[in-house]
C-alpha cells in the first residue's frame, strides 16, 4: 500500500485515497488562467481520437486530461495513403490533420465526452492567424472545453503548421490571435522540435500571452522501401513519434522549462510511469501520452495506475518534490 501505516477500515482507505489523490494532482498556473488536473497524465492529440473511442479500455475520468484530435473550422480529408509507417521504436505519420471540423465536434463529439469529470483540451489548427482567431472565438463559447492547444507545429500540412512554429514572430502572432479571441480559456501552445532554438520560440509565445507550452510535436522523418524503391509514406516525409524521440523530447522540455516562467507539458515517447517522472524531473508540470496508446489502447489509464507505485519506488511523496529538481554537478 502507499501508506503502510494507514490501513484498515473504509474511512482509513478513503483518507488514504484522498491523500493519494492530492499527491497526484497538479495545477498548471499560467499568467491568465490555470488548469487543474487530478493527475499529470493527459492524452496527446491525434493519438486518442475524440476520446470516446477509448471509453471501452478504461475510465476516461481517471485521466488528467484528454486532448482531442486537431480540429479545424471546416472538415479536412488529410493526405493520401499510405500515411503511416512503423519504424524502429517509433512510427511516422503524415495524416495531414484529417478531422470532422468544428461543427461536428461541437454537435456530436463533445456532448458525448464526460467533460464535467475530465478536462477536455481542444487541439486547434488553422492556416492563418485570422482563422486561428475565428476558431478560438468559437471554442471560447463552449462550456465543455477546458483549454485550447494551439498547433503551430504540424509537419504534415502545406499551409500553417510548422511554418508558424518555426518563426518566433509568426508563432507570437498566432498565439496572440488565440489569446485575444478566447479570453475565457487557458491557451497552450504546442511547439515543434524542428527548429534551431526551441527556447527562442518558447520565449516568443510566452511573451504573446500563452498560459502554457506543450512540447514536442513530431520530428520530421522519412522511411523508404528498398524493394519497391518508394518512400513508405505517400507524402514522402512525415512526423516521427514514439519511444525513439524521448531523448529529444526530454532535451526540449528541459530547455523550454529553463527558458520560460509558464508551465510546460512534456510530450514525446512516454510509455511508462517512470517516463512521466523523468519529464517532471527536467521541468514538466504534466505530460501527454501519444504513440504509447498505439502500443496498447489502455496505456494512459495504465500509466495513471502505475504512477503511485513508481513514486513509491523512487521515494517521491509528492510530484512537487521532483518537478524541475534535476541534480546537476
Amino acid at each position, binding site marked *: 500500500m502507499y501508506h503502510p501505516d494507514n490501513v484498515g477500515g473504509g474511512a482509513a482507505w478513503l483518507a488514504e485515497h484522498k491523500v493519494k489523490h492530492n499527491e497526484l494532482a497538479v495545477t498548471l498556473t499560467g499568467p491568465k488562467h490555470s488548469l487543474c488536473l487530478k493527475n499529470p497524465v493527459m492524452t496527446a492529440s*491525434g*493519438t*486518442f*481520437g475524440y476520446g470516446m*473511442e*477509448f471509453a*471501452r*479500455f478504461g475510465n476516461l475520468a481517471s485521466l488528467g486530461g484528454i486532448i482531442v*484530435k486537431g480540429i479545424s473550422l471546416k*472538415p479536412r*480529408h*488529410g493526405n493520401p*495513403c*499510405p*500515411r*503511416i509507417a*512503423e519504424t*524502429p*521504436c*517509433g*512510427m511516422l*505519420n503524415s*495524416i495531414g490533420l*484529417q478531422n*470532422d471540423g468544428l461543427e*461536428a465536434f461541437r454537435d456530436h463529439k463533445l456532448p458525448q465526452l464526460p467533460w464535467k469529470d475530465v478536462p477536455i483540451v481542444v487541439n486547434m489548427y488553422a492556416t492563418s492567424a485570422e482563422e486561428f482567431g475565428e476558431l478560438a472565438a468559437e471554442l471560447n463559447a463552449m462550456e465543455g472545453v477546458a483549454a485550447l492547444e494551439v498547433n503551430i507545429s504540424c509537419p504534415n500540412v502545406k499551409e500553417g503548421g510548422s511554418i508558424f512554429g518555426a518563426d518566433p514572430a509568426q508563432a507570437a502572432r498566432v498565439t496572440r490571435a488565440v489569446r485575444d479571441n478566447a479570453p475565457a480559456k487557458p491557451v497552450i501552445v504546442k511547439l515543434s522540435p524542428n527548429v534551431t532554438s526551441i527556447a527562442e520560440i518558447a520565449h516568443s509565445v510566452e511573451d504573446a500571452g500563452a498560459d502554457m507550452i506543450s512540447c514536442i510535436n513530431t520530428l520530421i522523418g522519412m522511411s523508404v522501401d528498398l524493394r519497391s524503391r518508394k518512400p513508405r509514406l505517400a507524402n514522402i516525409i512525415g512526423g516521427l513519434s*514514439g*519511444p525513439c524521440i524521448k531523448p529529444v523530447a526530454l532535451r526540449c522540455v528541459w530547455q523550454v522549462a529553463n527558458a520560460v516562467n509558464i508551465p510546460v507539458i512534456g510530450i514525446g515517447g512516454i*510509455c511508462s510511469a517512470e517516463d512521466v517522472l523523468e519529464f517532471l524531473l527536467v521541468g514538466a508540470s504534466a505530460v501527454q501520452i501519444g*504513440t504509447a*496508446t*498505439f*502500443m*496498447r*489502447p*489502455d496505456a494512459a489509464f495504465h500509466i495513471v495506475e502505475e504512477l503511485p507505485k513508481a513514486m513509491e519506488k523512487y521515494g517521491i511523496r509528492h510530484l512537487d518534490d521532483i518537478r524541475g529538481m534535476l541534480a546537476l554537478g
Partner: protein
Amino acid sequence: MVPTTDCCELSVLDLVPFGLADPVHRFFALRLSPPNWPDWKPGQFLMLRPKSFGQEFPWGRPLGICLIRPQHLICFFQVAGRGTELMAKLRPHDPVQVWGPLGNGFAVEPDTPTLLLAGGMGIVPFIGYVAQHPKAWNVSMLFGHREPLECYPVDSINEHIPVDTLRETVPGDLDNFIFTLQERIKEYASQNGLILACGPLPFLKTVQSFAREYHARVQLSLENKMACGVGACLGCVVRTTDAWPDPAHRNAPVQCCTQGPVFWANQIELA
C-alpha cells in the same frame, strides 16, 4: 482467470505452422487463451502485440478472428515482415497484449442464399462465419488459392458447407478463376443473394468490379495497414463513394478499423 476487458494480456497456447507451406509464405495457426468477448462476430478482428515486441515494434498486428471457443481463441497469420517474423517465434505461455473484438463483422442473413468468396488466407474469417451461421445450408464457398490446399484451413469449412476450390499454378488458371467469379456473382445477383469476399486487394478489386456490373449485394473485408485498430490513428482510412449512408462522410476518408473492415462494395473506392 478469464480476462474481462477489451484490452487484455493473453497467453499463447500453441503456434502451429500450417500445412506444407513453403518457407517464403509461412502460415501459422495461433491459439491463445480465450478472452472474455461474448459479443464477438465473424469478420471482426483483434490487434495482437507480443510482449517480445518490446519498444522496437510499437504497433500491434491486426489479425482476423477465426474462432473464439471456451477453451481458446484461434487466429492465423502469414509471415510478411520483421514483426510477423518475431510472431513466428512465439512459444506456449508467451504473453501477448490483445485488444478487441474490433470492427463491424460480416452481414448474416440466415434465409438468404449466401456466397463466400475467399482468396488465399482470406478464408480465415469464414471459418467462424460458417460455424456460427444458423442456416449453413444456405451458404456456399468459392476458394481461390496459390499454395497447395493443405496450406489452408479449408477442412474446418467444408465440414459445414460445399466449397469449390480453384488453384492457380499456371497463368491461365487466373483467367479461369476470374471467369468463375463472374459467373457466380452474376448468379447470386439474379436471386438477390448475399456475397461476402475476403482476400488480397487485386482479388477484392475484381469482385468489386463484377459487383458493380451486376448490381450484386457484396461485402468486402479489407486488410489495410493499421497502427491502433480503434479509430484513432487515421492510418487505415478508405475512401467512400456517394452511396455511403452518412452524408457527412460521402466521398471522404473513413477508418477501415471502426467503419469496416467489412464494407459494402458500392460504398467504397479501393485504392
